């Protein structure tokens, strides 16, 4: 008997599935790290805080901004994870339902949207969100006085990006659950996913502490505008392609 025939056929599929899950998670983390609203509000708040208070106080206030971002993203992710885990207990299988197709469609739309409409036309890095909301965010960034102000502004700015982050949280929850089914350590991926929106904030924090100013940050954002759009569109499309190819049953 051929030895190859004796191997269980599922062994390869499980490893491949875990590999795909990790790939999707990494792409989702990359998108979260490339979104521009929270870093923009953070840079603006840091600049204003530094202009009004001492270096230590502004740094301390901005730490609470980061905590606000982290708390809201962790809360939303864990809520979605919990809701989907209830569905999984009821033998919900995303690959056999229309769920996966809807998600893929949303991701392709977001990919298209992020390339053409994420930044408004014209100078600067004006984002897609309505001008009224940006004015409110700018006003709040200018008037941070206490730790709670900074915390709320962090949470609010992260919440304004739900259009882009919500589908990612859903996909990440499903993929982490899938990894769990295969006895892969999920804690590491869950923690990495929840922490990924903080990467740009810590980079901006480091830049400010290294002596760079808001002018340098605005210039670098302007310079990398096309690259950001390209990365966002590519990552959204790649996730959609991976889901269509590996997570749907015809």
């Amino acid at each position, binding site marked *: 008997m051929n030895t190859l025939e004796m191997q269980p056929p599922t062994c390869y599929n499980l490893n491949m599935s875990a590999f795909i899950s990790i790939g999707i998670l990494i792409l989702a983390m990359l998108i979260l790290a490339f979104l*521009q*609203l929270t870093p*923009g*509000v953070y*840079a*603006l708040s840091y*600049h*204003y805080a*530094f*202009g*009004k208070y001492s270096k230590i106080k502004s740094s301390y206030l901005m730490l609470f901004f980061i905590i606000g971002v982290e708390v809201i993203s962790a809360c939303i992710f864990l809520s979605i994870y919990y809701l989907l885990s209830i569905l999984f207990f009821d033998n919900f299988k995303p690959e056999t339902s229309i769920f996966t197709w809807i998600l893929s469609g949303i991701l392709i739309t977001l990919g298209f949207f992020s390339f053409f409409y994420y930044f408004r036309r014209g*100078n*600067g*890095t*004006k*984002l897609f*969100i309505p001008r009224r909301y*940006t004015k409110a*965010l*700018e006003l709040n960034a200018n008037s941070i006085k206490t730790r709670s102000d900074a915390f709320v502004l962090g949470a609010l700015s992260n919440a304004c990006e739900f259009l882009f982050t919500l589908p990612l949280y859903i996909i990440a929850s499903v993929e982490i659950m899938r990894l769990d089914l295969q006895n892969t350590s999920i804690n590491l991926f869950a923690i990495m996913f929840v922490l990924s929106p903080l990467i740009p904030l810590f980079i901006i924090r480091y830049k400010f502490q290294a*002596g760079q*100013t*808001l*002018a340098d940050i*605005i*210039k670098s*954002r302007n310079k990398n505008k096309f690259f950001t759009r390209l990365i966002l569109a590519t990552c959204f499309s790649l996730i959609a392609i991976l889901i269509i190819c590996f997570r749907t049953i015809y």
Partner: protein
Amino acid sequence: MKNFDDKDIEKELKIHARGLSIPEGAAEIFISRTLKDAKKSLRNKTIITEKDLERAIIKELKKYNADLAYVYQNHDTII
């Protein structure tokens, strides 16, 4: 119609200057000079829009500190 207060603009510019780590004494001097020159350049106009005033301030600021002028011009285009 809106009334512009020199002090508000001066305060805003000082916050930006401090955020950019420009020494306070120097910032105070060139901000007051900027506002004075900007007002002088707009003296002949009967109607002044917010944009006109902003443009005049940016033009004068550029003479003293390019970074401050850039931030004042672009602070509302970052998000």
